[in-house]
């Protein structure tokens, strides 16, 4: 069990870093799917597998919705970025990792004594990385992926605090709703601008 949770934590760190650093939707969607798998592994430490798997399925559904929309968008550009921006984001991610390793033991001792340290670190890693991502970009699908990651991190921690069917159900609604909102934005952006069409016709 311990090996599995350690592996899940490492997977969370790698996938969160990948989402933070890269801007290619294929990498991000793949990383998000793996991230949900790792989050599921951490949630199984607190919840029965039958209930925890709801989070995995929901996460994968959300990921699939976003990935398929990106795939269908004709104007999705593969952005070419300078090496410096990748390095900058990588360093900021490392800073978050460092910060979380420093803060979590104290946080566990003072606020969440009943929560396993790996669960706390995994959850906060997702929260921290996604907040950094939210602060550094405004692209529609990346914002939504960051919010989904943020919620996944919160769910990992909250699962260790409380077991509730209604809460799990409502979180499914929120996660899928968020993914649908992301899809909605991406489709709206992909639509031709009505005003420019009108001007062209005139």
């Amino acid at each position: 069990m311990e090996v599995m949770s350690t592996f899940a934590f490492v997977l969370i760190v790698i996938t969160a870093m990948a989402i933070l650093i890269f801007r290619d939707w294929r990498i991000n969607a793949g990383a998000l799917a793996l991230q949900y798998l790792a989050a599921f592994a951490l949630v199984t430490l607190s919840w029965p597998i039958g209930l925890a798997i709801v989070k995995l399925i929901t996460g994968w559904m959300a990921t699939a919705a976003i990935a398929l929309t990106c795939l269908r968008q004709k104007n999705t550009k593969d952005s070419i970025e300078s090496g410096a921006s990748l390095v900058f984001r990588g360093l900021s991610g490392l800073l978050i990792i460092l910060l979380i390793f420093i803060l979590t033991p104290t946080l566990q001792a003072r606020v969440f004594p009943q929560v396993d340290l790996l669960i706390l670190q995994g959850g906060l890693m997702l929260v921290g990385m996604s907040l950094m991502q939210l602060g550094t970009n405004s692209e529609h699908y990346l914002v939504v992926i960051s919010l989904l990651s943020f919620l996944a991190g919160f769910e990992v921690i909250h699962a260790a605090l409380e077991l509730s069917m209604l809460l799990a159900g409502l979180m499914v609604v929120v996660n899928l709703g968020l993914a649908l909102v992301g899809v909605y934005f991406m489709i709206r952006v992909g639509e031709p601008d009505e005003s420019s069409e009108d001007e062209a016709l005139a």
Partner: protein
Amino acid sequence: MTLTTPMIWIILPLVVAAVCVVLNKRRVFGLILTSITAFGLALLAAFFPEEMALSIGPLALVFEDSLTILGRRITLAYEMLPFIAFIFGMLGLWGLSSNLPGVPETFRPIGLIMTASLTAAMGVEPFLYAALLIETAVLVSIPMLASAEQVNHRALLRYLSLMTIAMPLILISGWLLTGVVILPPESPLIGQAAMLLGLGFALWLAVFPFHSWVPMVSHGSHPTVVSFLLFILPTTILVFGLNFLNRYSFLRTSEEIFNILRLVGTVMIVFGGVWTALQDDLKRAFGFAALVETGFSLLAVGFSTEGGLRWMLMLFPARALGYWLWGYVLTRFEHHNGSLEISTVKGFARSYPLLSVGLLLAQLSVAGLPLLASFPIKIALLTQTAGSGGGVGIWSFFGSLGLFLFTIRLLLYFVMPLDDEIDRLWPTLEKTSEFLPVLVLVLVLVLIGLMPNTFLAWIANILTAFPQLQ
């Protein structure tokens, strides 16, 4: 036959919303269905018998106040019905204006779903799960707010992000607070829980510095839709916040927390007031004015021990009517003029005299002009604030002048003739169907201003649902 109150005020609106979605091309049908449902539910809530039983001819209906879903309960108690009547009544009013030019077809079903979600949030047990229902309402609201502009998308993403970040903060703080009850008052956990809770509410209520989405969304989205959003979200979030004050005595008895609330409220009034006065865009000004109103609500909560909660609640109906009128006239002006920059509404008092008066009075009513709806409450609140010392009173007063100044600026533009119109007759372009709602609403605002206790005091009855706050 036994029914439950959540089936009436949560499930039924959701069913009607589904019908509206299916028949979304039939706008008039949607308008009638939405308005009849909303007004019907409002009337039912307003006149619901305390014994929770209704007889319609031979049919005897007995109501229970709880509905069990996935092992948890949603309870809509009799004491909360005045508030439910209020939000459904206002939904009906906004429903009536849902056929105005440019209002998205999604507005009617989304309005119903939001109101149902937020009603559920008022009654879900444990009450903390309301955070998820509020988040659901936020997610649902996105399609009605979205326009084709990229700037608008950025605003909505910011709104979505801040609201989504708030939800876990509320849930975690709620979990911490359950343990706080048994802790000694000097425990650091109490402060940490209160800080998380405050941060969550600050994000939800768009408290400075988390406010930036409000003017952005206000600028980019449809005025009718924005006015509904800025009415329903802060109103229900503030009422939801009463749960915390009611349940946790350390929050109720902490002088520091009330001082912080007063300070934050004053900062919002001053900040929002200054920015409102300086705005050149009518829609952005509305957004900043909404921030000032949130500031007044927080200020009122800060004076809870002096009856501030009654003022906070009594401000809701006056504010809602003002917002509706404001959104209505902005919609009409945007349709006629295209732009809502202040420089482009020059001479509007000549072409659209009654609509112009409607906009000015809506703003003045929200600002608290004597004889209009918000005045009796705001004057009581400002008097209390002035007596409390510490500069809060004087700053709140100056902050609240911001909307007055903006209205005076707007009035000057409204009456300013265009260069080629100086010697010409004033052609009136407005139609009776456009200004009739304005006349009715202005009359209602004046009546409320003249008889505030008759029209506003009933909503304070919901405090009976919070026994520790009466």
